[in-house]
């Protein structure tokens, strides 16, 4: 085991409330043979980072509909969504749209 995959996870629009009210997390993902995707990242986040009410963030194997995901400031819908292969130093942002005014 050498050093893992370093990524920045950011939260906005209220999603940060589910992650200890911290908007920016620098994390290191353990590296093995299978490359990291957003799919496996979500599972990791659920087990390691998510502090409360997981059903407000995860639904099935993906994010709850209404949560926007941006990878390096680009909409994940352009990048293959769950199958996007995470690279070192990526910034992945989760914005909740579910909070009203």
């Amino acid at each position, binding site marked *: 085991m050498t050093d893992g995959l370093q990524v920045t996870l950011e939260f906005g629009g209220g999603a940060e409330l589910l992650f200890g009210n911290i908007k920016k997390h620098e994390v290191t993902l353990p590296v093995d043979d299978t490359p990291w995707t957003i799919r496996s990242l979500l599972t990791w986040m659920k087990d390691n980072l998510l502090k409360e009410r997981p059903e407000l963030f995860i639904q099935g194997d993906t994010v709850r*509909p209404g949560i926007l995901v941006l990878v390096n400031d680009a*909409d994940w819908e352009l990048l293959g969504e769950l199958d996007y292969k995470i690279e070192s130093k990526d910034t992945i942002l989760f914005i909740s749209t579910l909070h009203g*005014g």
Partner: protein
Amino acid sequence: MPVLCSSKCGKNAILKRPKTGDALCKDCFFWAFETEVHSTIISGNLFKRGDTVAVAASGGKDSTVLAYVLKVLNERHDYGLNLVLLSIDEGITGYRDDSLETVKQNRDDYQMPLKILSYEELFGWTMDAIVAQIGRKNNCTFCGVFRRQALDKGATQLGVNCVATGHNADDLAETVLMNILRGDIARLQRCTSIITESETEGTIPRVKPLKYTYEKEIVMYAYFKRLVYFSTECVFAPNAYRGHARAFLKDLEKIRPSVIMDIIHSGESLQVKDNVKLPVRTQCSRCGSVSSQELCKACVLLEGLNRGLPKLGIGKSSLANRARDQQDAEKKEKVICDF
């Protein structure tokens, strides 16, 4: 592998538009977003030159984006509007007091005058006090009914020509679904109109410039423009019924993004036969607001609070009348005994 902008400008796309499926770069997205709101404003004849328009501002994403984009378009297309911010302080500690700070930030950033009206000064009750009396059930009914009237009163005090609200396409589709599920044909017929009809003299019209704007794009616009908005859920129980409609709609949208526009379109196309009896909208005999009953909902709810019968405005009006009569009778009896 970056995706290129659909407009062939050569830049990398940052967003997939839910409405069209287009991939757009930041600048082309800003342009498309603003142009669509402009075209909604023009084709709906929402404003007249010289109008004073109050933006109903909560500090949330929709009203923050609305205030910003109206300012941009007013300058770019020379609408000749005088824009002001109107906020309602429901008196919810830990929620509205914080979000009003965001509105004050908007006031300074966008250089718009701000008027804040509170439930306490208008009705003599804060939401905190109401919840202390009625508990956490039905409190959203009080809040919603009072907010509607508070905005009307604020608009009258400010002497504005119309009130612009931040209702977006997702909100409208939700409302259509909710009115279908509730079987509320009167509301179903009018909930999609872009300008609320001023059937009653002296009512200030409300307009929805973001009516065709998807929530996803509003949030993306706010993010890429670095607009500051407030995004904490209300500390009281969220509106459960709307929550169900919303979750259902988000699931549908995942499968077919155009569903939002489709539902709005269905709502707009709906026509009720002339021979269907709909409630006639008149004026409340107590406060003069628009109402389909002798007393408007806000006055009934307020009377319930002040009489210590908070259920008065919840449920059937016949039950309310009975409770009111009973209390009056009891009081009378007590007065007789006292003598």
